[in-house]
Each structure stands twice: as C-alpha cells, then as structure tokens.
C-alpha cells in the first residue's frame, strides 16, 4: 500500500532530474511554460501528498521473488488487497473497466488486474516494483511485425512513425521504450519494461544498442514535437531499447510510451516482513 502511495505521489529522482534539465535547455516560450507547470505540479503533489496526475493508471507489478521467501503463497493476494486499500486511502481513481459492459469495478481490480509479472530468483527476499501506468501514454503503443530483411533500419522507421502518430497524446516529454525480437508478446513486454522500469540516464550495456538508443533519442527530439506537442527541444527524455532473440521468420518491433509522470516505486521485503521502499 505504501509503495503504491509513494509511486503515485513522488516522482523518481532520475525523472525529476531529466525534466529539470529539459527545462533549463528549453528556449521556446510555450514549451518552457509547460515544463514549469510540470515542475510546479511535482512540487505541489509532494507538498500536499496528492497523486501527481489524476490518472493513477492501471496497476502493474513486476515481482522478483526469492525461492525461499516465506510468504510466497500469499503474495498475490496481498498485492491485490493493497490495490483495493490504496484506491480507498490514497485515493486512486478507479480505472478498471469491463471491456464488454463498460462496468467499472470501482477498486482497480478485475480480471488479470492488477497484472503481476513473476520472476523467481534465488534467496529469501521479495522485491517488487509497482508501475501505475497512465492510459494516455498507453493509447499510442505500437507493435509492428516488420519484414526481417529490413532489419535494424525498420526499427528507426517504426519508432519515428510511432512518435509522429502519438504526437502530443502521451504527454511528452516521454520515455520511449522499444522492444525488439522474441515474439509479439515478448517485444511488447520488453518495450514496456524499457519505458517504465529502466532509469533515465542509464544506457543499454550492449555498446551497439547504447549507440542505437542515443541515435534514436536525437532523431526523436529532432522531430520537434516538443513538450505537450507545443514544439521545442525535448520530445523524449530518453529512448530505451531492449531485445530478445527472434524467430528467423519474424522481426517484432514494439514501442511503448511512458508519460513524463513516470510512476514507479520498488519495495524490498525481508522474511520478517520488514521492508524498504526506493525509487
């Protein structure tokens, strides 16, 4: 519950720093005013202890559970209960809607929601990151199965087209997450992790991919869409690329946007239930 609260109220330090840098570098009057509003909003949310954005998102958990963590069997239930409580107490906006009846469950839970990604690691601790993901930045997500012969050039094409198509919708300055390879589902998961989990300022450890990230970042900003689509120097705070090996016949390229209001917080839980929260 506290981890969700922290995520929706306090922006992670890497994001705040990146926005401040964009503000200092911006010379367009309208874009600078927008960045100022964003920075003021971040401060005000912190001061009043209120969710920085009214869209408190769909709650996604990325869990890394130690193989001998004693409460492993009740973890799922605890996370779902925490979402219900956070909806009441923080509060969060109820965002869980049945796609067929449009009925809102009212508590941010529902079929497969909150979604929990599980990873089992060695050890006795539980670590999870909560990402309340906004709907506006999810809307322009893209998956393209490009002809494998086009290879790396196609990645550039897909990313730039996605950024153009997205325009002002995902609340730029965004973090553009790109997932390559694996399969349709795998590319999408990698793109989302690249957008929402990876810290701004980090580069892919593979030097070729690190260069690709830098080049894509420059190209995206060169388009000049700018903060909230008002033109300007910064359209993306970063471009992150992750990959998986692919089937010879397929070359999936997925693009997921993370709005400037990146909500993420990580909790590490010890076997005695004591915990620490970091961002």
């Amino acid at each position, binding site marked *: 519950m506290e981890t969700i609260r922290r995520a929706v109220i306090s922006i992670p330090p890497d994001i705040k720093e990146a926005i401040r840098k964009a503000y200092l570098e911006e010379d367009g009057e309208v874009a600078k005013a927008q960045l100022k509003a*964003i920075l003021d909003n971040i401060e005000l*949310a912190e001061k009043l202890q209120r969710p920085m954005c009214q869209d408190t998102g769909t709650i996604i958990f990325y869990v890394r559970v130690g193989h001998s963590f004693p409460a492993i069997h009740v973890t799922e239930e605890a996370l779902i209960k925490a979402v219900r409580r956070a909806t009441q107490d923080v509060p969060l906006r109820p965002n869980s809607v049945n796609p067929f009846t449009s009925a809102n469950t009212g508590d941010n839970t529902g079929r497969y929601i909150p979604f929990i990604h599980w990873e089992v690691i060695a050890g006795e601790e539980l670590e999870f990151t909560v990402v309340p993901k906004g709907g506006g930045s999810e809307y322009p997500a893209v998956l393209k199965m490009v002809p494998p012969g086009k290879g790396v050039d196609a990645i550039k094409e897909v990313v730039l087209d996605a950024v153009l198509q997205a325009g002002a919708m995902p609340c730029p300055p965004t973090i553009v997450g790109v997932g390559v390879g694996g399969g349709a589902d795998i590319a999408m998961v990698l793109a989302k992790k690249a957008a929402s989990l990876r810290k701004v300022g980090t580069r892919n450890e593979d030097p070729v991919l690190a260069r690709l990230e830098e080049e894509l970042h420059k190209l995206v900003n060169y388009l000049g869409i700018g903060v909230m689509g008002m033109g300007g120097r910064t359209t993306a705070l970063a471009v992150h690329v992750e990959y998986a090996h692919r089937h010879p016949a397929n070359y999936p390229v997925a693009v997921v946007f993370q*709005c400037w209001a990146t909500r993420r917080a990580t909790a590490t839980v010890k076997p005695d239930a004591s915990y620490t929260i970091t961002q």
Partner: protein
Amino acid sequence: MTIYYLKTPVREEEVRRLRVGDIIYVSGVVVTARDAAHRRMIDYVKEGKTLPVDLKDGVIYHCGPVVSKKGGGWEVISAGPTTSARLELYEPTVIEEVGVRIVVGKGGMGPKTAEACSKYGAAYVTFTGGAGVLAANAIRKVIGVEWLDLGIPEALWVFETENFGPLIVTIDGTGRNYIEEVVERAKAVKSKMPTKFTQSTFP
C-alpha cells in the same frame, strides 16, 4: 501571445478574439466530460431531452478527476486533462448542438473540431497533461455531479474554478490548429531524414 482572463458564461465575441498561442485563465463553472458523457449528451440532444447542466456558452473539460467524499460533499484531489483525441468523434456535434464555447483538454484535436470551432465560435485550449494537482488547486468547490452511474471518471463533474490555467489556445475561431501544425512540421522533418542507419552507427 496575449493573456486573457475569462468568466463563464463566455460570449462568442470573447472567444472569436482568441488566437493560437494565447493563454487564458477561466473563472466560473467548468464541467468535466469524457467519452461516455459525450455519447450521452449526443443521445440527449437527439431525443430532445434537456441536459442536467446548462452548457450553452459553457466550458467543457476533458477530465476524469480523483475525488474523495468529504462531509456531505466531494473534494477534488487531482484533476488534470485526459487525451482529447478520443472525443473528436463527438465534439463537433456537442459544439454545434449544445453551444459549448471553450473545450479544455490535452494532446490536440482534429480537423472536424477545428471546423466546428470556426463555424460556431468556439476554442479548444490545452492544460499541461499530467499536472493534476496544479489543476485541482484552481478548483474552488464541487457544485455538483451528474450521471454518476457512468463511474467516477466518466461522470459530469460541475466545478467552480478561479483562474483555471494557464490554458493555451490550441484551436482558435479561425480554425488554426497549433498541435497539428507542429506535427505536420515534424512529418516534413522526418521525410527528409535518411532511411538507412549510418555506417558509423552500424558497422
């Protein structure tokens, strides 16, 4: 770039004066409406029913707020704009039939809304996306809520605001569309980019 302070109800000539890039602050009644509320408004118009809130010369806000019950009323916790593009389907009809003067949202709207703005004398203005606490700070009180059966985000929330802004005029009464112009320029930039990755990047 000019700054205007407007009070609701907003007269047509006040809106006709606005130009893209101008900044406005709105005081008075602002009513939230998202997809489901827009759909229902159009149903009401078709059936000749009266809307529960008078929106003639009014201000619509694309927003689904975070609210909490306080005493007998409601408190607004966070209330930034939602992506307006989805409302492109309905907004021209709402401007024409309901007589809305100012539409507040984020992310831009399309040519049909721009056409309706120039024809009927309305403007589309944007508030900084995600700045939910900043927006809530300009809301003095919740006057009422209608159509709560649509769910909290989709209901018609009737707010009393004081200097709600800065709102940037993005579509004006001449039909100019600021964000579309920026995106068109970006498309032109992209079309001039080399399609191959440079040799230095990919040996």
